């Protein structure tokens, strides 16, 4: 589902090149779940951004569901995201001027889905928010907003779900609820799940784990092919 080969990211900072992600390989099969962990500034979000096609790598190639995305233009990427990738962010990022229902509707409208409204209602029900669709984000609690975000991410039934610190801004009860939701989706729908997190407990629920430090993969664990020229230095046992 996700295939990275020699992907790195270097930016110019104050006239000096700064490598924020060193060449990395990654291969995540369809239906798997993977957690990307590491301290602040280690390159986790950069990696996630690259996978989502939100940023272009300096070297290497990225393929999502067999489609090579490194050569696609902005609009083609937007279309691909609309169809194949769902997003959940730490800060929810709902559109403030739209109701919960309308927020869920947007990706389907963009993709030209018929009966989008029925599906949006159904998705809101699935995340436990039927009856709250007419509320604006400012009228919802953090946990509720994040569940709307999850519903939105699922709108076009994407094969890949990306989550950036999905619980980072929630209390533990609400966080738990959202995490349960994400893994349930991974299990029942066979949606590939990639999430960035600080939370060890959350990371432990993923089948694979990649740990980054200073832009390098320092540990990886889990099923599937993990070797290659840029594989990590060591494999750390995961305590379940």
């Amino acid at each position: 589902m996700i295939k990275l080969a020699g992907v790195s990211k270097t930016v110019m900072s104050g006239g000096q090149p700064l490598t924020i992600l060193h060449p990395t390989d990654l291969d995540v099969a369809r239906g798997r779940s993977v957690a990307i962990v590491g301290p602040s500034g280690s390159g986790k979000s950069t990696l996630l951004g690259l996978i989502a096609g939100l940023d272009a790598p300096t070297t290497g190639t990225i393929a999502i569901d067999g489609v090579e995305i490194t050569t696609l233009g902005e609009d083609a990427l937007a279309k691909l995201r609309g169809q194949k990738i769902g997003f959940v962010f730490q800060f929810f990022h709902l559109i403030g001027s739209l109701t919960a229902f309308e927020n869920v509707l947007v990706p389907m409208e963009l993709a030209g889905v018929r009966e989008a409204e029925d599906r949006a209602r159904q998705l809101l029900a699935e995340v436990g928010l039927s009856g709250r669709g007419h509320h604006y984000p400012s009228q919802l609690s953090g946990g509720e907003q994040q569940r709307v975000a999850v519903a939105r991410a699922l709108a076009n039934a994407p094969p890949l779900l990306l989550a950036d610190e999905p619980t980072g801004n929630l209390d533990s009860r609400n966080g738990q609820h959202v995490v349960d939701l994400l893994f349930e989706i991974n299990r029942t729908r066979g949606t590939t799940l990639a999430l960035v997190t600080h939370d060890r407990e959350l990371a432990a629920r993923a089948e694979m784990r990649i740990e980054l430090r200073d832009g390098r993969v320092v540990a990886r664990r889990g099923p599937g092919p993990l070797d290659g020229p840029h594989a990590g230095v060591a494999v750390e046992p995961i305590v379940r």
Partner: protein
Amino acid sequence: MTFVARMAVREIKASWKRLLFFFLCVAIGVAAIVALRSVVQTVRGALQDQARALLAADVVVQTNRPWDDQTLTKVDERLAEARVAARTELIETTTMVRPADPAKGGVRMVELQGISPGFPLHGAVVLQDGVRFRHELLADRGALVRPELLVQLDLRVGDRLLIGDTSFTIRGVVASEPGRRVGAFSFGGRVLVDRAELLGTGLLSLGSRARYAIMLRVPDDSMEQLVRTLRRDFPQQYVSVRSYRGTEDQIGEELQRAENYLSLVGFVVLVLGGIGVWSVTRVFVHQKVRSIAVMKCVGASSAQVLAVYVTQVAALSMAGSLLGVALARLALLAIPSRWLDGLGGVTPSLTTSAVLQGVGVGLLVSLLFALVPLLETRRVKPLLLLRDRVTAAPPSGAERRRLRERVVGRLRGADWTKVATAFGVGLALALVAGWQAGSLRVGLLVSVGFLAVALVLGLAATGLVRAVRPLRRVRVFPVRHAAISVQRPGGQTRVILIAVGLGAFLILGVKALERNLLNEFSIEARANGPDLFLIDVQPDQAEPLARFLEGAGLQSPARLLPVLRARVTGVKGRDVSLESFDDVRSRGSLAREYVVTFRDRLEPNETIVDGQFWTAAPATDVEVSIERSIRDRFRIAIGDRIRFDILGRVIEARVTSVREVEWADTRAGGFMFVFRPGALDQAPRTYIAIARGPGDAAERARLQRAAVDRFPNVSIIDAREIAKTVEEVLGNVTMAVSVVGAVAVFSGALILIGSVAMTKFERLHEAAVFKTLGAGTRTIAATMALEYGTLGLLAGAIGGLASVALSWVVASRVLDIRWDPSALYVAAGVVITALTVTVVGVVASVDVLRRKPLSVLRAE
């Protein structure tokens, strides 16, 4: 497509309040255009409808010399061919009237009209007290007068009135009469008498000012033919032929110019609105960055996102334009009817064409101004959704730049789409300005000036950012942070400078022009200038009149000047050659009738600028001295020969000198053409006497009465009376110009204040962080005041200088009036601009200063 439409509707529903200001900007601009244009169009329409009544006929054949038999025979011949339906004759002259009762001392100048049965052929003479007008009222020396005259001379209907030496009985009071041009200047109210009886008064001697007209009613289909034939028959200067269509056209042209000028002012207001639109849209896009990123993240293309916002802007512009039409309607209702009295009592209403133009221009301008900031949406990258860590420490400078580069795309790299769009927008604005001004040249001029000022302001912004760099190391917190703030990436410095600078430019420019216009109109009451002018003095009266005036208690001795009325009928010159009168006519005002004189010396208010003035010695050649404006306007030079027609006599004169007349000092009169004595000694001439009359009003009246009693054919122009009338007329003009200027200033100021206030949204967060870190309200306010004050001062100064240039160009190149830089005035404008920007900038952020920082940080 449905996505775009739905998204636009939803967003407007949720965020229309934030765009309220946008909406108002468009509305004010459109209201200005629609209201100004409507007024002029209504007036024009009404006047054109009345064109026949204004002329009182379909066709008028007229001359200012008595008809000679040959001409009359020819006219009659043509009229017979043209199936003329009705015909009447008229004579008009200015003269003095006075009560026949010697106990009543007044005397007045009037426009005396001698009419024949059948007058008027169009329109109607309406009399007061329900008396119906019929020609019989004028029989046996009857006269109809305006109500003012009754009051002025203390007369009643039935009383007797002296015109010349003939006594007339007042038979009625004229409420309204046809044949009176709106806004036309006249020396006095009209008095109607029978034409034959006017001829009998002996007032019309050779050289008197009079208009002899034959008025015709002609079937529409033969009218053009008749006018053309008559014009061909009388190529000479002294017979003119006019049809009501020509009057229509003339009124049309004059008012078209007024309409275009006012529309350009309206357009300027709308451009100020456009600046507001630009500023709002910019802030709006910044606030929407996250929503845009989300949309892109879930699959929207840049084009779709752009379309969502363009649709919103279009919808709001439409709504704003409609509100503008409503405002214009209210504005028209609010116009005091007093202002419109001079326009023939027209009630202005919205015209379809004005509404369509206003809405069209409103939509166009707001879309154009919104387009460039909206293009920013294309550069928003969804990556920023992973990047903002509001709770994290503020990023360092380098990191911030890097982030910015990654979040909003590369800044330095030229965005060619944007450059091309900006260029296209500029071109489109130039075209719209040209359309509104009715002249592509003016439109281009306005736009080029506008862009030039914008460019200077943009460069000034860059310069300022560089200049304040050293201040970043200053220890004083407000100074240091004001400097940092000015340098803040995101272009706020540029936005304020450009918006305020252009605003100050346009507002001060309009005001400076207004001042120059009003200066031009203001009549200088000269302390020692002459104020009594006695005209139409016959040669044999010159001597007695001079003696009469000597004993009349004048403040300064009177001077008598011989005057002749002349027309230029040809020029043989180095640069110009005008063979016939038709050629002369093609030179505009050169073809008008000039009053000329002859004398052997210069007056104190004259200086020779070229050639040499003649000596008193006799000469064989006919010589003429021309005024400088004749040389400059018609390119007539020393040595050129000018052919004159002086009451039927043709005289060719050589130009031997060019004089400059100090027009402000007209003690000795001002003449365009002065002849060397000799050639004109025998020509039919009259005299004018110039004097400074007694200061006391009663004494003045007595003097005038005594003069008219003795010289009944002489007309007296009392400059003090005229000045009153002129002041009234100019008062209206002044009022109109000031109102238009005030509308521009008021709406412009409103829009600019809003634009500056809008920039506060960009600093909410920063102010909150400063407060969290321990900065006091006063420190933050001082920082803002310093920053806004500097920007306001710089913007005001550049705008002010540019406005001086603007007023100069328009005054000297377009309006052809004296130009005064009004330096103090502009300086005051600059100071006011700086203060306003400072106050608005700080006050708009008061809620930021008051609010608890957490609420702001949370709201992020």
